[in-house]
Structures are given as C-alpha cells and as structure tokens.
C-alpha cells in the first residue's frame, strides 16, 4: 500500500512541468510548439500499452499528465485527443492510433447539449471529433460536424452548438462495456485536470497572500484570508489523494474502480470550482479584472466540470453503487 508517486512518476511530472513552463503562458491560446512537444513526449499515447502502439505506461501516468495540464491551466483539446487514441486503439484502428499519437489530429469533444443538439468544444482547428452519446463513444471526421460557434464562457476553449445529430461513418467506435471503460478513464482524467486546477489556485492565492500588504502587513496574516487558503489547500489535497487512489484502482482493474472514480470526480469538481471562485475573492479588485489570470481558473473549472458528465451525474451513480471493498 503506497499512494505516493514512484521516482519514475515524479520524473514524468517534472518533465511535463518543464515542457509546459517553456511552451505555455497562462492566458494564451494553445501554440503549435506545445502541441508538437506533447506528441514528441508521448502524452497522447502515454497510457496505452506498447502492444496497442502506446508508450506502455498506465492510466496513472496519463492522469499525472492531465493533472499538470490542469495545473498549468493549459487550453487545447488534450483530453479528447488522449481519449480518441483510446477509442482508436480499442477499436483496432492502429493507423489512426499512430496518427493521433504523432499529433497529426486535434480532436474536438462533442457531448449532448439536449436531446437534439451537441455542444462541441475546441472545434476550430480540429480534424477529428470525439462524440459521446447514448450509443457510446466514437471518433468522426470533423468534416461531418456542422456547428455554429457561440461565445464561450472561457475564451480559450471555443464552443459551438450543432443544429442536430452528428452523422457520418465513424473512423472508430465503441459501445457497451468498451465504451464504459473509456468513459471511466475519461472521467478520471477530468478529475485529474480539476485537481490540478484546484492546486494551481492555492499557489496563486498563497503567493498573493504573502505579497499583498494592507494595514501594514501581508494579507495572508489575517485569518479571513489565511483560513480560506487553508480550506483551499485541504480541498485540493483531498482531491489529489482520491484521484491517485482511483487511478490505481483503474490500472489494476479493481471491481471498485467505478466507485472511486465517481468519488474522485465529486471531490475534485468541488475543489476546482470552490477554489477558483475563492481565489478571485482573495485577490480583491485586481482579481475581478480581465487582465489578471484569476478568472481563467473560474471559467476553466466550469468547462472541465462539464466534460464527460457532471458532478451531479457522478453523485447519482455513486449512490447507486454498492460499498467499496
């Protein structure tokens, strides 16, 4: 029993951090350089076995990468691209898997907006779309998807709504248990991204609490601010620990994995949304400006929280399950 990362996993995290620090600036759109670096580093295939053309690590390493993308508040269709590679690999489409891994495709994410329409994230610049609906999960050519852009709550995550269904022959498709499997990994990766966001807001609030002075002292000395920071840190830590636990249950294909992924999603959503909101409050007037980056975490947390279901959908499924082992 050991919930801490191995030294190899720690190294993966430092490498991802270094790449992001070098090629990503908070508040800037996704650059080609970061996308190519991600492909070179194997981020899109990190969790797939070598037999499926993958890097040969597991969902644990995959979730560590996604967590860092959350921490950096990096925009870009990383989640859907990683999951499209899962779908392609499980569907036996080796060519597509390899192309996604090489960074040749940016994959948009289409989920139900209502019974008729889909909401699509990251469509501009995408060559493929990952479609999630009641039939399962499939990868289609972006040419099949006609959608009208709407103003996005997060300017760096473009959003478009379709007029109707998404049709067209899929390049890879999963249904039944295979689809459930990929969606479970997807929900865990969403939780990891949310846990990263939650942690990033702690860093931002604590730095400001030490730096900003009022009444002749750093505001972080005041309990009103200090206690909010302590709560933020606790929520972020709880989320990270549960994400790590759930990732191990998925890697090991344990029977209680779905239970733990639900739990991870619930605590991580709460951590990311609450923390990002309180982070604005901790910054006062400057936190309310467009120029400051605090709002980036607020809107990104909302976007992540609505990927592949919601906290509420995971609450329903968690309560319906039998107790964990």
């Amino acid at each position, binding site marked *: 029993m050991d919930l*801490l990362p191995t030294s190899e996993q720690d190294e993966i995290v430092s490498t991802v951090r270094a790449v992001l620090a070098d090629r990503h600036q908070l508040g800037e759109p996704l650059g080609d350089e970061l996308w190519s670096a991600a492909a070179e580093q194997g981020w899109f295939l990190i969790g797939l076995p070598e037999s499926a053309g993958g890097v040969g690590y597991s969902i*644990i390493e995959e979730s560590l990468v996604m967590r860092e993308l959350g921490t950096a508040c990096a925009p870009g269709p990383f989640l859907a691209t990683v999951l499209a590679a899962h779908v392609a690999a499980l569907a036996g489409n080796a060519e597509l898997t390899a192309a996604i891994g090489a960074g040749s495709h940016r994959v948009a994410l289409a989920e139900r907006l209502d019974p008729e329409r889909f909401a699509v994230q990251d469509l501009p610049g995408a060559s493929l779309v990952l479609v999630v609906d009641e039939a399962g999960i499939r990868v289609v050519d972006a040419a099949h998807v006609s959608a009208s852009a709407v103003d996005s709550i997060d300017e760096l995550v473009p959003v478009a709504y379709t007029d109707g269904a998404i049709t067209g022959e899929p390049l890879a498709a999963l249904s039944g248990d295979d689809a459930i499997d990929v969606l479970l990994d997807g929900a865990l990766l969403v939780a990891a991204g949310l846990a990263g966001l939650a942690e990033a807001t702690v860093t931002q609030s604590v730095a400001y609490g030490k730096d900003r002075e009022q009444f002749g*002292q*750093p505001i972080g*000395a005041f309990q009103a601010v200090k206690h909010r920071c302590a709560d933020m840190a*606790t929520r972020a830590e709880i989320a990270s620990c549960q994400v790590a636990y759930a990732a191990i249950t998925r890697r090991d294909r344990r029977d209680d994995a779905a239970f733990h992924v639900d739990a991870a999603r*619930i605590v991580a959503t709460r951590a990311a949304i609450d923390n990002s909101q309180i982070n604005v409050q901790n910054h006062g007037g400057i936190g309310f400006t467009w120029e400051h980056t605090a709002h980036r975490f607020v809107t990104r947390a909302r976007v992540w929280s609505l990927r592949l279901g919601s906290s509420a959908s995971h*609450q329903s499924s968690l309560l319906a399950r039998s*107790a964990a082992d």
Partner: protein
Amino acid sequence: MNLDFTPDEDAFREEARTWLAEHLPAGPRPPEGDEMRAFDLAWQRTLYDGGWAGINWPVEFGGRGLTDIQQMIWYEEFARAEPPFTLNNSCTFVGNNHGGPTLIVSGSDEQKAFHLPKILRGDVVWCQGFSEPGAGSDLASLSCRAEIDGDELVVNGQKIWTSYAHVADFQELLVRTDPSAPKHKGISWVICDMRTPGIEIREITTMSHVNDFCEVFYDDVRIPLTNVVGQINDGWRTAMSTLSFERGTAFMADQVELAAVVERLIDEARTRTGPDGRRAAIADDEIARRLATARAEVTALRAMTIAGISRVLRTGVPGPEGSMVRLFHGELHQRVYQLALDIIGADALRLTSIDGHGNWTGPYLQSFAYTIGGGTTDIQRNIVGERVLGLPRV
C-alpha cells in the same frame, strides 16, 4: 503506487477479524462513572491478553511494533465488527494515544517502565490537563503554577475540559514553572497522580448529556520532580510532540468508523420514509446528493489518510496531509450527523446515547466536540495556513 496489502497484512486482517468476532463485548457500554471505567478497562485488558494492545507501539515498550497500515487494518476490522462503543470516546484514549506515546518519545526509563505496561494492560486511566479557563486556543498562555520546593513541584491553579478526570489515575499536566520566561519557554509537562491530596474535581455536563467533562482544581498539590517528562521548562516541546500524535494516527479509528457510519446511513435512507411521507428518504434529491457527497468525502478522507501513512513509511516525516486530515475529518463528521438527523425525520426527537450502533441523536450532539477538542478548527486552519502554506503570522 499500489493498493496491495502484503501477505502479512492480509494475514493480520484475517487474524483480527476472527479474534474480534470472538471477543468483542456485548453492549451497551455503561454511560458513566465507575461502571463505564470498568467496561473500558476490561476491553483494554482483553486487547492486551489477546496481543492487540499497542499495535503500533515499539516492541521494546510492550507494543507489537507493527506499521500504521496494520493499525489502520485493525481499526477497519473493529468498525466492521459493529462494536457497541466508539474508541474515541473510551476513557483509555488519552493513555493509548497521548500519554503513552509521549512517554515513549520523551519519558525517562523509569517513567516508561512504570507507566507503559499499566496503560497497555488496562490497569489505569489517563486524562489530559492542558486547557484552562484563560488558556484555550492560546494554550501557551496557561497560568497553572508549579513552584519547585526541594525535590517536589507544588501546583496551584485550575484545568478545564478534562474528560474522565473523575475516573482517572494519572494526568498529563502542563504547568508554568518559570513565570518570568517568554510564554512558550516556562512550561513543564508533568505526570500528576490524580489521587494526590489537594486535587478537587467537578464534573461538567456537556450538551450531549455526558458528565465526564471535568474541571480540576489544584491546591498545593505536591508532585515529585521525577514526574517531569522531558526537561523542566521544556514542556511546550513535549506537548507539541503529544499533539502531533493527534494529527497523525490517533483519530484514524474515528475516520474509519465514520466511513462505516455513512454506509449505515445510506441503508437507513433506503428503508426510512423520506420528507414527502411516501417514498424512501433516498428518493429525495437533496438527501441523495448530500449522501453521495458524504460517501465521496469519507472515501477521499481514507485516501488522504493512506497518503499520509505512505509518506511516513517512506520518509519518516509526516507531510501536509496530517494537519489537513484533522480539519477535514472534524467538519465531515459533523456534516454526516447533521445529514443523519435530516434523514431520520421525526425519530430525531428521541435522544440516544452518544455511541452505539444505530444511534443518531446522541452522536449528533456529541459531534459538536469534533471541531473544538484538540485545537479548534480555527486553530487547525492557522496550522495549515502557517506551517503548510507558509503564510505569515499576525
């Protein structure tokens, strides 16, 4: 990263489960006084005879020298056995989790040899003597005086919020031995024999109808200097080492138990009629959401506890999780019992005892202690803010 138990740990779990099934006492636990003391000590003695006392105490001091993982497995099996009492409420808690561990770290050879076997065997009850009427959150401002007179300390003053003082044999007592030193520097940690002349104990009734909460008055109470643990005037450091146990494993039993309580509550919500008077309580959306959140939170609390154990096993040093576990657990414990009262409907009118399977209102009233005792949640937040996040003090 792995969730696997070793063959030894699996065998330990099996052994614990079998033993508990045969030895767990029938309830209910007597609510107060000498009968309660006898019940708690008899259980401690049963543990001792079965080889289950001091699971994570070092072997040289009579413990089993096992890991915190095994300690956690024991608590999980204890909770699974549906015991008629709560370990955290036992009058053996301070000896097992405070006094004993403090002596192991800071006590003299004589102190260890005299006291540790008695604690493990269930011969004695220990209580705490930290808080005073004027020194609660600001513990270091305590003013209970002890003056050196020959080879004795003479204690005068008052302590308060001392659970089980009225049935205790010994007390871990913080006294001011140097009033001229800065407040953290002039404190000593001493072992006080509760039968020493000059001690007067008054019981305080809590909001949960329990009378074991006491105040203790000291009038020229003479304590041998050999009862000082650690150095004289260095008691703050000794006390902090005691409190670090609280933020470590002392409340693990309670966390494990809370997970079992949430499962029981989900069962209750499936069988009890909900607020609309027709469907089961669990069909109510708000109750369902809160139950799901509680289930997710106790699950995540366990993950955080395991992360803390992992760090201690790997590095020997507690990480940030330790301080956060207390804070999160105390408030979660309260939320769970608040939710319980919303689920049981009119049955919430009936007062129950504070522990025992299937009781809700007593534990609800008792839950208010969880964000006050052992340092209020306000102090816990200061600790996380200052020691973990490095935010400045006022």
